[in-house]
Each structure stands twice: as structure tokens, then as C-alpha cells.
């Protein structure tokens, strides 16, 4: 099976490390909350691990039946992006339900207040 060229290795390593550091920096500056960062960090971490631990990448490539290790890396990236998108849909659904409850609460309370003032 084709080895990753040093060129490919360096590029993949640098990209994943940069992604990892970028997410960490966002969390440090409180632009991204810890609870929403873990899936991103996991993605970047997994990419680094797969590039560094080449035998694992080969093994996974064999298991999924991909042609080259690079395909496996790409497949992992797509799967993680899918997971992240679904994760966000879940968060949005929860937020929508919280907004709904808040709006209802606000409406009921202000109706009570208005009736009392009349």
C-alpha cells in the first residue's frame, strides 16, 4: 500500500494541528464554549493521530476497503463533519425549544401584569 509522501504527511499534520490550535484559541478567548468544542477537538486530534500512527491508518484503510490511506483520511474527515452537523442540529432543536418556552412564559407573565394594571 502506498506510503504517505513526506509532503503529504507534513501538510496533513500542519493542517490538523492548526485546526486543533485554532479551536483551542477560540475556547481560550471564550468565543466558543467548551461544551461545543469537544467534537472539533476530537476531529483534529483524530487526524493528527492517524497521520502520526501510520500503521493504524493502514489498518483502517484495509478494514473499510479504501484504495489509499489518503482516502481514509478524507473519509474520516467527512464522517466527522457529518457528526458535527448533526450535533449542531440537535443543539439548535434544543435552543428552539428553550426559546419557545421562554416566549410562552414571557407572554403569560406580561398578560398577567397587564390585567393587574388595568
Amino acid at each position, binding site marked *: 500500500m502506498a506510503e504517505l509522501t513526506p509532503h503529504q504527511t507534513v501538510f496533513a499534520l500542519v493542517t490538523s494541528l492548526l485546526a486543533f490550535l485554532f479551536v483551542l484559541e477560540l475556547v481560550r478567548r471564550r468565543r466558543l464554549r467548551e461544551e461545543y468544542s469537544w467534537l472539533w477537538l476530537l476531529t483534529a486530534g483524530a487526524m493528527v493521530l492517524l497521520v502520526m500512527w501510520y500503521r493504524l491508518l493502514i489498518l483502517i484503510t484495509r478494514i473499510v476497503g479504501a484504495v489509499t490511506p489518503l482516502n481514509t483520511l478524507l473519509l474520516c474527515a467527512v464522517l466527522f463533519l457529518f457528526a458535527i452537523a448533526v450535533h449542531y442540529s440537535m443543539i439548535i432543536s434544543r435552543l428552539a*425549544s428553550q426559546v*419557545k418556552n421562554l*416566549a*410562552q412564559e*414571557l*407572554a*403569560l407573565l*406580561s*398578560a398577567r401584569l397587564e*390585567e393587574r394594571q388595568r
Partner: protein
Amino acid sequence: MKALVLLPAFNEAARIGRVLGGIRAAAPEATVLVVDDGSADDTAGVARAAGARVVRLPFNLGAGVAAQTGYKFAVREGYDCVVHLDSDGQHEPADIPALLAVIARREADVAIGSRFLGGGADYRAGALRRTGMGVFGLLAWLLTGVRFSDVTSGFRAFGSDVVRFVATEWYPTDYADADVLITLRRAGFRLKEVPVRMYPRAGGRSMHAGLRPIYYVFKMLLSVALAPLRREAFERKGS
């Protein structure tokens, strides 16, 4: 019996006055609550002038959310029965006492106004709508063993246990028809259909306009299919 007549309303200032007048004539002892779902027109003002109590949602949240706001209101103020009807004049207010009576006599926990039962045969619907009603009626029958003649009816009365049940988290936000009936049946409530009159809309914008029917069918198929599997379907009433 402390009864609440609940009307969710979205931009219905032109039509709601007449409906409220009809309700006052048909059920003078009931409190009327209009939940204004973020209307841009003077729906709230018209309703207040007609003697209804009004709860205004800060922005448009959908018919299901507006109705649930009314159920939460009823729970807090201790109503024994809530009759839900449309604010656009499609439902005949004179039929409210018939629905209330079912709850008052404890014949059922849910009274559903059916336009196809008994005398209500003068309602005409298009072929597409008729097909949809047929399919969801069939699904509801398969999933609950109850034959509903009008599964898309929004004209219904809930007893206090049911009101408490629908005031919890799961109540659907947009369309709430067949899936709600299935969930209520699965939760052990008794459902009974009552013949009512329904009319075509007197103008304004239907919530079934444009591409909405396609989304309606998708949403309803999904939630009807999942209704028997969801957690609330296994919770017993009053819990």
C-alpha cells in the same frame, strides 16, 4: 365546571370579532382566551374589545405553540376544560356546548369535533385534502384501533388531565392533528367524536397555503410513525 375557550390567532383582526361574538352567545359562562401569535395587525386589540382575555406571544411561533401557551394558561388558572377552536370562523361556536358536555359528563377525556359525523356533511374539501384526511385517518385507526371520522379537526375539548398532559414539553409546535390524537390514545385517555359544523375560510391566509401541504404530509407521517414509540406515549395520564 370552569371552562376556557381557547383561540390561537395570527393576523385575524378582520374575522375574530364575529367568532368571539358567536362564542359569547353560545357559551356565555366560559372564559375566552385569545393567544395572539405575534400578529402584525390589531388582533389583540379587537379581541380585548370583544371581552376576551389576551396573551400575546412576542413573535410568531406557530399554531401548536400558540395553542400550548393557552394550555399552560389553563393549567395555571385551574380550568377543568379547554375548548380549542380556530379564530378564522371555520368552526361553529354554537357547537361548543356539545363538546363541553362530553367533558362535563365525563364521557371522555377528549372530545373531537367531527365535520363528517352525523349532521356535519355539508363540508366540502378538495380531492387532495380528502385523500390526505383518509390516509391519516387510516394510520390513526391502525395505530390506535379507534376509527376517527375527522382526524384533522382542530375543534376539540380537553379535560383537565389532558390539558396538563399537553402543557408539557412534547406538544408539537406547528401542526397538531393525528399525531396528538394517537399520543393521547396511547397515553390512555378516552377520545370521543362529536358532530360539529365547519365552514370554508372567510378569507385571510390559511396555514395550508403554498408548499405547506407537502411539509404537512412529511411532518405528519414522521410524527405519526414515531408517536407510538415516543416516551410520552407510555406515560399514564395525570402523571
